[in-house]
């Protein structure tokens, strides 16, 4: 028997706010800090209303210093708090890279578990919203390649809230990436109160037997369109939303490609050093003999994200994904 749970129609950004609210209500030690997160409610309104509800000792407008925000969050986390630190944009995280790389991610290892850093770093990211320069970087791979960090990317409001709650409950640092293009693109029924979407688990958005498509974040919309177009040509796609980028859901990736024998990987981050390479190596390790065609990747280029007049060229399009699907089926 299931119990009816009340739901609310929320956008992704509202679901993120709700996830923080639920955990702040439940745990006194959860705090939110960052630039403009208080009175202003964040530049995307992700923390809207939280300072009114929880006060300025728990929702903190910090001085403008990313390294300062992350560095002090590490100290707070090691001393009993669960900071949710907001980076205004992922493209502004670089001053904090040192703190994340040399401290947040490895304090547990350095002290054999005597000190831990249970914190969440939230950051909007990705291109396609005509943002000014540097605001559109997709550098998730810098962090998936960083030992000691978990990296997650929801693609819809339901997952955003459930994964954020799981990230806050996680005993280790989690980079929680929020695709800007998904912030207000759709509304979805989101349960009130607490629920978890587990980290490390991908989700199958569409079942198919011919080609596996692996993507995440804002690319889910692109690959869903491509899968529909492919279906009209008789190609059935198994569409997988990876959701967690480290650690990847190895089992679902293997299960899917062992069924289809073909894979297309899509991400807007640059191809070289991107998640596509990691997924290809996983396919190689788990499913080499099942493959009927070389894996195709549709990715951003090995270039800086151009200013917005050119960003549509940079971003993988449904057309490019369809071409890749056709290529692996015609091999």
């Amino acid at each position: 028997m299931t119990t009816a749970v009340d739901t609310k129609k929320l956008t992704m950004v509202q679901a993120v706010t709700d996830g923080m609210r639920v955990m702040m209500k439940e745990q006194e030690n959860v705090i939110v800090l960052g630039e403009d997160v208080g009175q202003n409610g964040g530049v995307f309104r992700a923390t809207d209303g939280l300072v009114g509800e929880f006060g300025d000792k728990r929702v903190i407008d910090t001085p403008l210093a990313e390294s300062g925000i992350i560095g002090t969050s590490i100290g707070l986390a090691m001393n009993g708090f669960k900071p949710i630190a907001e980076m205004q944009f992922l493209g502004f995280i670089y001053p904090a890279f040192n703190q994340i790389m040399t401290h947040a991610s490895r304090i547990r290892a350095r002290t054999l578990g005597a000190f831990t850093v249970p914190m969440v770093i939230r950051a909007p990211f990705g291109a396609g919203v005509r943002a000014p320069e540097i605001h559109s970087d997709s550098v998730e791979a810098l962090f998936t390649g960083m030992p000691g960090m978990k990296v997650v990317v929801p693609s819809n409001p339901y997952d955003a809230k459930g994964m954020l709650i799981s990230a806050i409950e996680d005993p280790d640092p989690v980079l929680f990436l929020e695709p800007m293009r998904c912030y207000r693109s759709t509304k979805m029924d989101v349960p009130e109160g607490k629920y978890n979407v587990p980290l490390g688990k991908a989700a199958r958005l569409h079942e198919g037997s011919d080609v596996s498509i692996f993507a995440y974040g804002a690319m889910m919309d692109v690959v869903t369109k491509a899968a529909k177009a492919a279906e009209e040509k008789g190609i059935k796609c198994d569409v997988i939303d990876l959701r967690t980028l480290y650690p990847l859901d190895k089992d679902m990736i293997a299960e899917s490609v062992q069924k289809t024998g073909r894979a297309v990987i899509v991400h807007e981050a640059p191809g070289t050093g991107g998640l596509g390479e990691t997924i290809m190596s996983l396919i190689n390790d788990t499913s080499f003999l099942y493959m009927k065609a070389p894996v195709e990747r549709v990715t951003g280029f090995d270039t800086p994200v151009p200013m917005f007049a050119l960003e549509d060229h940079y971003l993988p399009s449904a057309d490019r994904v369809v071409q890749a699907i056709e290529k692996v089926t015609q091999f």
Partner: protein
Amino acid sequence: MEKQFPKLQIINENGEWNDETYRSEITEELTKELYTKMLRSRLFDRKGVNLQRQGRIGTYVPFEGQEASQIGSALAMGEGDWMFPTYRDHAATMTFGHSLKTLFLYWKGRQEGCIPPEGKNIFPPAVPIASQLLHATGAAWAEKLKGTDRASIVYFGDGATSEGDFHEGLNFASVFNAPVVFFNQNNGFAISVPIEKQMKSKTIAQKAVAYEMEGVRLDGNDVFAVYFHTRTAVERARKGEGPTLIEAVTWRYGAHTTADDPSKYRDQNESATRREKTDPILRLERFMKNENMWDEKWAGDLQESLTAEIEAAVKEMEETDAPHYNDVFDHVFAENPWPIESQKEAYAHSRGDR
């Protein structure tokens, strides 16, 4: 600290003399030049906000209210000097030589908006906060090593003083005695965060003390104070007497960007009051009237010719050919390495272009 670093002023809010040191240099010609440049930048700024609202450019970053700070300081710089602006400093860069068309192109999401005019050392706007202070220090240090008397000016806001790069920039300039003018525009807010939450220091100028550097605090809405005190700092830099930190106290009337809503975090009546009371352009107009430099016809003609200049720049911006996607690939390195070349070919192929 406010006593040690008083807010220097040459003319007050009513356009009356407060400090007559530079009286002989404040000619009608200089005054009209400053007025013209300030009005030009204000009209440009308002056009930028309107173009964004009409969807003809992307997010725009307005500076209205900060014209005296940017123009007085930029005018104090010389031909071969270096300028390192932020994304809010187009009044400074247009004064130092950027074309209005280039500035509009930047806000239209065009890479061409980052290209300096021939022979002008203007860096692209710094988007990450405070990073540019180190570049300005490095460029000034290079001039010193080359034995020239050129200097750098670098712009940044009150929020930037919280970043590590601010302190590193000042310290390097101090240690290497680099000819830099660190020009801070303290407009009281870093997006939504008021300066009282940003720092406990009463002034920004006092931060110079820690680096054994000259610190100057001035009324950033008094274009004469900005111009003459910046000029002094530049002269000192040229003579090898080291860097200066200038704090220009000013105010942005509008939003942080066109994507921001200031009513979320402050009472916008404050901006309305300041428009009447402390506006930099209105103050200069009052001064010109007091000094019998004001001429209604001149002002009217000026408004008309500047408006025409700006409209012409908008037209040029809008008539610029769409960029080619090759620009995404062809400027990352001097020569495309194979991964970029193969991505470029694959992309062209995917479009049926080859």
